């Protein structure tokens, strides 16, 4: 598989007040810390983690909505600069979580879908309308949807519109930022199946951001687990689900409710994720980790191979 997009040591820091004349010391929110991962053409990589783990921030970096504070992003092997982004913006599209905020209420659906083509100036008005009509059919909406406005559609239909817009410029990667979590369960599976079909048809790659491991299990090839802005484990889906190496991943998988299984006591994660304003020293997971030892409070574990191919974990006691 050939690498399509890769992040290389990407950190994202937000100023969080302070500084200036009277503000005291500057405070920095570390949303992502030296994260590296790659998405191959046609594959689906899931970014999973609790809220606040930096999943969406990294999605924004890949979609070009957030400039990283450190690190670089590669697209087809080339480090992206200003000129490179122009091509990358066509090839990378984004679908948001909230289907009610993602569509301009004052735009008819045809204009929404064809918008990326208009912005990139790659098609004239007639060609854009033709493409919009084609896409409406492809994502399973009725043809008369074209001249209607977003408020006339349900959440699932809106998400289909958002997907159609992302497809318009024939992208190679779609960043899907929790595209299902605002939808009803019955609608979730429909949209999920649509995304699967489109992937098979066009060889799309997805960067699928989610906290729902059941959905992840259904769709993705590889999983990257984030904790407090750090990548703690990455591996092929089956391998990672069957043999989680990092204690955080193990706890996360244990937290998934399953029918016919009593939840074992003591295996749930204690406490809450620390504030990204004051990350703990050493391994950021040590305050909640059942295996924490002295070394965890001092040394930051590196992301190293577990011994199974392509499966890395950042833990001093990886299994």
């Amino acid at each position, binding site marked *: 598989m050939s690498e399509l997009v890769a992040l290389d040591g990407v950190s994202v820091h937000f100023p969080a007040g302070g500084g200036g004349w009277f503000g005291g010391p500057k405070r920095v929110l570390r949303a992502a810390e030296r994260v590296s991962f790659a998405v191959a053409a046609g594959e689906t990589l899931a970014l999973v983690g609790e809220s606040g783990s930096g999943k969406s921030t990294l999605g924004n970096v890949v979609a070009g909505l957030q400039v990283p504070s450190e690190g670089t992003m590669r697209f087809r092997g080339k480090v992206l600069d200003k000129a490179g982004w122009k091509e990358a913006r*066509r090839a990378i599209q984004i679908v*948001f979580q909230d289907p009610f905020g993602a569509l301009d209420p*004052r735009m*008819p659906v045809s204009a929404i879908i064809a918008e990326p083509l208009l912005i990139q100036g790659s098609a004239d008005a007639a060609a854009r*309308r*033709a493409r919009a009509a084609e896409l409406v059919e492809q994502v399973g909406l009725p043809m*008369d949807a*074209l001249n209607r406005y977003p408020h006339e559609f349900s959440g699932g239909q809106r998400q289909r519109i958002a997907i159609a*817009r992302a497809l318009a410029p024939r992208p190679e990667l779609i960043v899907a930022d929790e595209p299902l979590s605002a939808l009803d369960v019955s609608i979730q599976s429909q949209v999920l199946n649509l995304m699967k079909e489109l992937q098979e048809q066009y060889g799309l790659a997805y960067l699928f951001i989610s906290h729902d491991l059941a959905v992840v299990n259904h769709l993705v090839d590889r999983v990257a687990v984030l904790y407090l802005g750090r990548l703690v484990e990455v591996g092929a889906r089956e391998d990672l689900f069957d043999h989680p190496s990092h204690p955080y991943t193990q706890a996360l998988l244990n937290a998934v409710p399953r029918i016919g299984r009593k939840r074992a006591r003591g295996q749930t994660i204690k406490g809450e994720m620390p504030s990204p304003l004051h990350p703990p020293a050493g391994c950021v997971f040590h305050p909640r980790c059942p295996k924490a030892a002295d070394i965890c409070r001092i040394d930051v574990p590196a992301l190293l191979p577990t011994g199974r191919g392509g499966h890395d974990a950042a833990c001093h006691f990886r299994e």
Partner: protein
Amino acid sequence: MSRLEGAVSPWRLRRRRFLRHRAGVASLGVLGVLVMFALAAIPMQWFGWDPDATDLFARFDPPSAKHWLGTDEAGRDELIRLMVGGQMSLLVGVLATGIGGVVGVLIGLCAGYFGGRVDAVLMRFTDGMIALPLLPLLIVLGAVDLTKLGFSRGFAHSGAAGFWRIVVIIAIVDWTAIARLVRAATIALKERDFVRAARASGAGAGYVMTSHVLPNVATPIIVAFTLTVGRVILFESVLSFLGFGIVPPTPSWGNMLNNAQELVISAPALAIYPGLLIFATVIAVNFLGDGLQHAFDPRSET
């Protein structure tokens, strides 16, 4: 409209929605008639109708074959004065609102979208404008000697100078409310996901402002514009009353209404005609605004 037509451009959809709004379409017709009425003065003047010709033997004449709406206190024909005055009032209303509105929208958009220092500078400037007391400012601006600004003597004393003076004064004073309105709406809109999706596709500031922000703030802008047009036409009469801007004998609906105040007992018709025309204009503009709102807001129902 057939059920299975292809995609239609947003502007065509908006036009359709506007045409379905009856009051809006009717108001457009009324405004059209008012403009025709005002413009009809031009050919009528070729045929010897003169808005300034006085006839002191025919003061306060009732309507007759010669003077269809009678004459005013100087024996001038009321009808042709209403027509010429209409040109002044409508032009002042549209131009002053338009210029002030465009300035306000631009400043609000830039302040809201770019934020930070641009916002701080533009909004402090706006606050400064709001803080200026209106009447002394008007008197100072009205008293500016245009020959000192490099305009020729002929222009400075012509009716056109008075007209432009009014347009500029109103435009300078009247943009602040629109600027604040647009700024607030822009700040709320620029972080919405549909704007971020457009930016992810490579949209620049200009595209986001014209395609996403403006249509979404169209409703309050239109309301502000329609309210301003009516106010400006009346404001013009206040300024004329104070002696700035359009000064008699050049007629405008505002100064005709003002002149008629003293005579309202002896010649009420002289107040009623311009009053009715201003009333019709303001009402029509408001309903036109309703129609435009309906066209821009897909959620509104007629």
